[in-house]
């Protein structure tokens, strides 16, 4: 059922001269090589839009003008063409699946080709595999499905982003995200549509706005360019309606074990007792029982149980397609509602699409594609925000209540609106011992709002003229209109912005509009049978403009008003007569101008050569460096077409490929990165201008030189299929928003960060091997078993950096010449001293230093010494980048049942588990159960030092918290049953499938944290790659669904 619209118009060029032929009814049955009927095979009349599909029993019928060619087509089978001759009306057809997908057409950018003609390395994932997974955005469903592609998650909150790495990290600039191209039109490069809390609040990945049911296939260009192309399902001339309905139920895949109330009281009081020397000998009982909610028993709260829940969702979609000889259309609609695994996290989304093509004459084709999507997201603040509910739930005291009937809004809150401590002693000697305020997670989730409403219109239209055979001239215009309304409400009684402003409402409107205009000529012609030439020549212009308008209101008259409503607020700063003006905004634009050309030549379908060049100019680069020139060349040799191999029976197909080319990257760069600029910089009531950025006048394209050598071969009558590639990717002119020395004082785009400048800062190399293996393990009458396996081994090395001998540092990770990106540089943990319970570390030269929290001093071999310093951190040979990864899929069918297990694995990487360090905190906060192993008696062997209130030296950064991240995860297990037969047909249903699926059922890993796949650093951090910092775990989701086709 998966067809490429455009595939109907390429390939065979048989044309008939019969202008108005007789219509003739043709019918028959389509079977596979095994004699089983094939359902859903498309039968189309070449050169027209007349088509139909086989039913569940493989039967079809349609009206065909005589003399026309009809094409039988189904995924995984070679096309079959027949010419309808006078007097024939029945055609029983057997489709041959031995040529796998070699005949299939893939999109390559500005055109499409058959897989067997490709000389580059390109991977394809079918849309049905994408749509089958219960993920909001389609990228995550690519996980493990294709060699060379690695997908990571930033968390299990609805709408969280993904990291997509194609053959490793190809840039350390703010974006190594691939370029997404839909229906040939590049999309907006936005990772998170939200801006509040510096983008660290509620995140929303705009890829979640794409209806994954609409995706026909995803093509990943691995060598020529790191680009992901996908085409939406298009009209295929088949009249069809299908419905799908799914219900999902999700739980966090794993949560951290925290102390319960009794354990918390014991540990906390032990911390205080051990801290007597710090508090002038006074031993305090800090953890005490309270009855805040007034229910007559001591309070106990499991905050994680309160914050996490079982999320329920449903997802209904319908698609229709139809066509006649002058045109076709495809339409779809989807509505989904998901309640996330975090209390109050909920998302509703509606998505519609309409694709249509018309072909009024033989030489003209035109079409439009239009989709609209709107999502209402009730987000929550999570890992990157300290008042985030999931972070607060880790720290919140388990011996206090959620609610307090005496509080003005009924929650257990202190005077400043944070979690009330009850009778617990939160300060000693006028010093807080809790390490800061803790939000009441439930009050926060109940009373505050973090909403966003993104809307997206993707539209494109094209016109294609074919004046002579083989020559096509195309003009295509597309827009990506992304609109986001962000809304945040901070309650006046809840600590933070709400208490500071007596209620605060903030709204941000973000409008990002991108248009792309492509004009290109394709010429395809075969000369003297053996010589095939294809030429492409074209231009592309792209323009992006973004506008944001911000409005705020504070000092709100009543908690009833959670929107900005005239007359319901004063915006007077509490305690003053100051009226706060809370409006703001920004505008920026950038443009891309490109010219490209490609020449392909094939001799006897055996020897293939492809040459291409493109020239691109991007507005953000320097005046004299904005143009980049990117040539490439590739060769292919279909060895199996040679006579000496034709005779070898067991080789069905073999091709050798090699490609070498340059690719430019400009993504993630500020719109005016090459210029020195001032911006508005007011000073209280006075207007002013202050420095905005230091520009790099000669900022230029980041350039990858990519080499790929590959072999594709199929053996045993195409039963086994192998693809092996070696790749070497040299990236020079790496662009990074790099930080010069702090003393240079350059301005920063983020207030909270050191100043930085977009610079070409160095070079690195990624090289490795990819291996894909597909096998029809068993093919029996009633039972089939297919296996596919892929494996990628990769290594990265930084070759050159801007300042010789100086690393680029981010947290505990470095970019260091001669080492893999993301190498950890850490102090080395030497364990807990058995006699005293004090922590010890190795110095850079291997001596052991011990810290005594009682005296707050250091000793080495029993003698007083200086403290450990930054110079004691050493390079490890461990990096956050994996050395290998891949996936294994097994699919079985037995009679009408189908069953599949899909697994992903990643290895050779290390995670800095800062969650674990944080949950061993010696502040008066809750801990993980790991702290129960703390040292208590001389001679005890343990890795957790004696607990001493407010002294966190033992938990400072060291390789103690560096853990192997290797894992094997069962991504999905699915089971389906296909109903068929006469009964269904009688009531007008051609196909009915019931299915059930478990997503993330289990994981095998030695990693101690929640989820080794979740990385709290998003795409914009390619140095500190593997940090786990209190991220929300991915959900485990159970799906039940029904799919009906009429």
């Amino acid at each position, binding site marked *: 059922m998966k067809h490429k619209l455009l595939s109907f118009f390429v390939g065979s060029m048989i044309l008939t001269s019969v202008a108005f032929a007789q219509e003739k009814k043709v019918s028959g049955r389509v079977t596979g090589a095994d004699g089983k009927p094939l359902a859903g095979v498309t039968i189309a009349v070449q050169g027209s839009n007349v088509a139909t599909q086989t039913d569940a029993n493989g039967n079809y019928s349609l009206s065909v003008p005589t003399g026309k060619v009809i094409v039988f087509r189904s995924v995984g089978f070679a096309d079959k063409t027949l010419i309808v001759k006078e007097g024939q009306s029945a055609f029983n057809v057997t489709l041959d699946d031995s040529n796998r997908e070699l005949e299939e057409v893939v999109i390559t950018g500005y055109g499409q080709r058959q897989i067997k003609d490709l000389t580059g390395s390109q991977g394809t994932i079918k849309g049905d595999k994408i749509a089958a997974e219960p993920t909001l955005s389609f990228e995550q469903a690519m996980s493990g499905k294709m060699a060379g592609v690695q997908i990571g998650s930033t968390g299990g909150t609805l709408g969280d982003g993904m990291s997509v790495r194609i053959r490793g990290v190809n840039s350390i600039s703010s974006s190594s995200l691939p370029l997404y191209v839909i229906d040939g039109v590049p999309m907006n490069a936005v990772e998170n549509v939200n801006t509040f809390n510096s983008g660290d609040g509620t995140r929303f990945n705009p890829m979640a706005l794409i209806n994954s049911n609409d995706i026909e296939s995803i093509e990943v260009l691995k060598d020529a360019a790191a680009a992901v192309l996908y085409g939406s399902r298009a009209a295929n001339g088949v009249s069809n309606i299908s419905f799908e309905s799914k219900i999902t139920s999700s739980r966090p895949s794993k949560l951290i074990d925290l102390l319960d109330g009794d354990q918390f009281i014991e540990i906390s009081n032990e911390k205080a007792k051990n*801290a007597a020397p710090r508090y*002038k000998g006074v031993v305090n009982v800090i953890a005490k029982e309270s009855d805040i909610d007034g229910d007559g028993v001591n309070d106990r709260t499991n905050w994680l149980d309160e914050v996490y829940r079982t999320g329920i969702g449903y997802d209904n979609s319908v698609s229709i397609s139809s066509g006649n000889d002058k045109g076709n259309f495809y339409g779809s609609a989807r509505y989904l509602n998901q309640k996330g695994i975090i209390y109050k996290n909920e998302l509703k989304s509606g998505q519609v699409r309409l694709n249509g093509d018309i072909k009024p004459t033989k030489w*003209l084709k035109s079409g439009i594609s239009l989709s609209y999507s709107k999502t209402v997201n009730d987000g929550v603040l999570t890992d990157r925000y300290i008042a985030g509910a999931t972070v607060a739930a880790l720290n919140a005291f388990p011996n206090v209540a959620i609610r307090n009937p005496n509080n003005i809004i009924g929650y257990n809150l*202190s*005077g*400043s609106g944070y979690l009330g401590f009850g009778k617990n002693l939160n*300060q000693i*000697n*006028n*010093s*807080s011992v809790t390490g*800061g305020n803790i939000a009441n997670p439930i009050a926060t989730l109940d009373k505050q709002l973090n909403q966003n409403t993104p809307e997206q219109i993707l539209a494109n239209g094209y*016109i294609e*003229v074919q*004046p002579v055979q083989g020559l096509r*001239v195309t*003009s295509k215009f597309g827009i990506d209109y992304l609109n986001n309304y962000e809304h945040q409400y901070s309650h006046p009684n809840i600590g933070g912005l709400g208490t*500071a*402003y007596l209620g605060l409402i903030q709204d941000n409107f973000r409008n990002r509009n991108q248009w792309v205009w492509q004009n290109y*000529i394709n010429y395809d012609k075969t000369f003297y049978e053996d010589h095939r030439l294809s030429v492409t020549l074209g231009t592309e*212009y792209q*323009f992006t403009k973004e506008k944001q308008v911000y409005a705020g209101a504070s000092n709100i008259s009543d908690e009833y008003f959670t929107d900005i409503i005239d007359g319901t607020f004063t915006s007077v700063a509490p*305690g*003053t007569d*100051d009226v*706060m003006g*809370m409006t703001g905004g920004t505008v920026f634009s950038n*443009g891309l*101008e490109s010219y490209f050309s490609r020449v392909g030549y094939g001799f006897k379908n055996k020897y293939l050569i492809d040459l291409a060049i493109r020239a691109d100019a991007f507005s953000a680069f320097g005046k004299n460096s904005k143009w980049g020139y990117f040539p490439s060349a590739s060769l292919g040799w279909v060895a199996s077409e040679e006579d000496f191999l034709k005779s070898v029976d067991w080789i069905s197909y073999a091709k050798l490929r090699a490609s070498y080319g340059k690719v430019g990257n400009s993504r993630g760069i500020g719109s005016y990165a090459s210029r020195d600029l*001032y911006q*508005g*910089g007011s*000073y*209280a*009531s*006075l*207007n*002013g*201008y202050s*420095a905005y*950025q*230091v520009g790099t006048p000669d900022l230029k394209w980041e350039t990858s030189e990519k080499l790929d050598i590959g072999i594709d071969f199929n053996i045993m009558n195409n039963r086994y299929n192998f693809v092996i590639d070696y790749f070497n990717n040299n990236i020079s002119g790496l662009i990074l928003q790099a930080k*010069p*020395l*702090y*003393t*240079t*004082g*350059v301005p920063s785009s983020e207030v*909270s960060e*050191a*100043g930085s*400048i977009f610079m070409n800062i160095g070079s690195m190399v990624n090289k490795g091997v990819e291996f894909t293996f597909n096998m029809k393990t068993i093919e029996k009458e009633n039972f089939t078993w297919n296996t596919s396996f892929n494996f990628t081994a990769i290594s990265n090395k930084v070759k050159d950096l801007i300042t010789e001998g*100086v690393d680029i*540092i981010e947290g505990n990770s470095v970019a260091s010449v001669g080492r893999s990106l993301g190498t950890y540089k850490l102090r080395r943990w030497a364990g807990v001293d058995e006699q005293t319970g004090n922590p010890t570390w190795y110095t850079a030269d291997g001596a052991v230093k011990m810290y005594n929290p009682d005296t707050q001093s250091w000793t080495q071999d029993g003698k007083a010494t200086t*403290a450990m*310093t*930054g110079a004691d951190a050493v390079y490890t040979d461990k990096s956050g980048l994996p050395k290998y990864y891949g996936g294994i899929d097994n699919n079985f069918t037995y009679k009408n049942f189908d069953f599949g297990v899909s697994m992903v694995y990643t290895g050779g990487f290390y995670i800095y588990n800062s969650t674990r360090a944080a949950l061993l905190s010696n502040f008066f906060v809750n801990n993980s159960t790991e702290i129960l192993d703390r040292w208590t008696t001389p001679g005890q062997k343990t890795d957790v030092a004696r607990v001493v209130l407010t*002294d966190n030296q033992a938990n*400072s950064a060291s390789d103690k918290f560096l853990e192997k991240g290797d894992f094997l995860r069962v991504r999905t297990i699915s089971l389906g049953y296909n109903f068929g037969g006469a009964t269904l047909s009688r009531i007008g249903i051609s196909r009915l499938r019931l299915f059930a699926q478990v997503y993330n059922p289990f994981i095998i890993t030695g990693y101690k944290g929640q989820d080794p796949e979740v990385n709290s650093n998003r795409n914009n951090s390619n140095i500190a790659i593997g940090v786990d910092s209190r991220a929300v775990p991915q959900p485990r989701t159970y799906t039940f669904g029904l799919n009906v086709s009429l």
Partner: protein
Amino acid sequence: MLKFKYILMGSIAFGSLFVSCEKQLFESPYAQLDPAEAFASADRIAKTAIGMYDALQNREFLGGRVLIYSDIRGIDCGVPSNFGNIPNFSLLRSDDLIVEDAFIGGYRTINEANLFLKNIAIYSGIASPEDEAKYKAEAKFIRALSYFYLINLWAQPYKFTADGSHLGVPLVLAVSDKPFDPSNRIPRNTVKEVYDQIIKDLEEAYPSLPEATNTRSISDVGRATKGAVDALLARVYLYKQDYTKALEFANKVISSSKYSLEVSPKDIFTKYTTPESIFSVAHNGSDNPNTNHALGQHYSPGLRGDIQASPDFVNLMTTNDLRRKDLIVDEDGAFWNGKFTTIGDWAPVMRYSEVLLTKAEALANLASGTSVSAEALTIVNQVRHRSDASTSIVASAKSELISKILQERRIELAFEGHGTFEFLRTGRDIPAHGTAKEQKWGATTVVLPFPQAEVQQNPNLVQNPGY
């Protein structure tokens, strides 16, 4: 029909080439100005000069946080846990992010002043000569003020060595055209060199700056004035223990007759532009460095309330003392500083009572032998009696007078960024408080570490011992 298809094809193929795309695709910024535009007119230059104060509001530095860092290492605040390990002397490490942010904030502020000086030289003659001179003077004032806090947080006090020859902080006095060039690896200057630069900048700034007007506005308190320069010079010389000079500049402020003690100490912190206010970093509700970094947010129990006032400090005052009645808040069973209560509060840097106390301290020190300076006693009581007429300071010996002046200074200027500086400049140990142990004068722990990342990238930057 056949012709039409060629027309259509032709227009697609060549249509794009006629579009002058660069103009449509490559636009100038909407939200920013090139330096040439920011200095294009006298009016724009006036606003670009204001931008230096925007940078001075840096939330990690003189927006208020830098004042907090001195105080939470002092003894009147308890030991709050929201500021990394800054208040925990022995736990503080060079990778502390709060210390790093403060260091970044200081040099960012200085860069804005340096950048203005560079550009005003390029675009000279557009603003009037008087204005141009005034703006340059403001740049130098801001630079001097920023270095004052940098040198006192990251280096041992002036008297650590007899001639101030120990290591200070790197002096960056010009904007680098190549920020990544190794020439930016500036080593630490000596403390004396930094103080000399501060004094030079202030002396050069003085002639071109205006006097504060009697109808006080943001321009008289929130921007550099002659009074602000003199008050800062008085403080700088006091820190150098050059009492003659400190006295000279304190007297200049006093004799200018532009300043006087406000009747109610509370008003200084709510009205901001009182006759007592000499220099503050201005803020308002819409323009504060960051709501979460505002002084009021950290100190006020109704807001975040991160920092408490210690009972030992509160007990220094009688219950009649206006500073006890109006500027200390009793809430949640604890004491809190009441000087900052809202997110729009200005960050006070210099006020008249400080100048009076500087004069008193200078006089007391300059008195011959062990004699008690009567004038010093009068002045310190002037400050005391404004808040508490019921008690008077008396002293029978020089050392007693000095210590009582220092105590009055502690009470009067509490939570305004003088905390630890007061001990270090006078050669005193920092007493044990909260969980913090006593820190000996001259100990390695009394100065902040240079950020680890900076030391790693600048081999010429010598780390403070112990980090």
